[in-house]
């Protein structure tokens, strides 16, 4: 799949998951999706990844949390 399509899909996803897009933006998204089934596929892919990322919380990441608490986050960032 084209890298640019996947990046565009990811940007749309982030916009819809972190903001409240206007009707105009939503229409732009609809137009983009309609352009090609490749766009829909890319969006479904990034959406699945997004869901999977949320499921990650089921796994303990004590090391990461420890770093957050102790301010040693620079080892991660």
């Amino acid at each position, binding site marked *: *799949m084209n*890298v640019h399509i*996947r*990046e565009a*899909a*990811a*940007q749309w*996803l*982030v*916009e*819809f998951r*972190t903001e409240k897009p206007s009707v105009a933006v*939503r229409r732009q*998204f*609809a137009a983009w*999706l*309609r*352009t*090609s*089934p*490749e766009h*829909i*596929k890319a*969006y*479904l*892919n*990034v*959406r*699945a*990844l*997004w*869901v*999977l*990322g*949320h*499921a*990650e*919380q*089921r*796994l303990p*990441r004590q090391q*990461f949390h420890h770093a957050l608490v102790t301010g040693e*986050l620079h080892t*991660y*960032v």
Partner: protein
Amino acid sequence: LLPKTKKTFVADIAAKHGQRLRRFLAVRLRNTADTADLAQEVFLRLLRVERFEQIRSPEAYLLTVASHVIHQHSLTNVSMPVTSDDFDALLDELVATDSDPVAQVHLERRLEALDRALARLPPRTRAVFVLQRRDGCTLDEISAQLGISRGAVKKHLAKAVAQCSRQIHETPQESL
């Protein structure tokens, strides 16, 4: 009417209307390279027609079959535009919910694949994704935590999503 074999019938149509058929297909296909394949498929279907003697207008019949072939082609060909009436319902579901039954399958295995994909991200991009998705931090919280702008947080998020998705979905044994 002289009795004709089906092959003769189709050969006649091909000779008389073959060029018309190819033009008909070419203007309707986004990828004109598919024209020859679809023309062949049209003729193969004509060979399967039961009562070819009853066809009064071979040209009209030919183009009707061609329309059906194009339609079926569009359902399987990724480069054709989407025109489904169900599109708005799909759109609503896409933007409104995170429900994804498929995602529940092999969850542990896919989480491991995600971990591997995350490990390949630049550290800051990885941190933004983990803070947002796993820990449920807001954009503003991440912005404050990492000392980067809200817009930068969104860029890191999109980058993480695109790159992890690419790695997971394009590696066959790790497909979601």
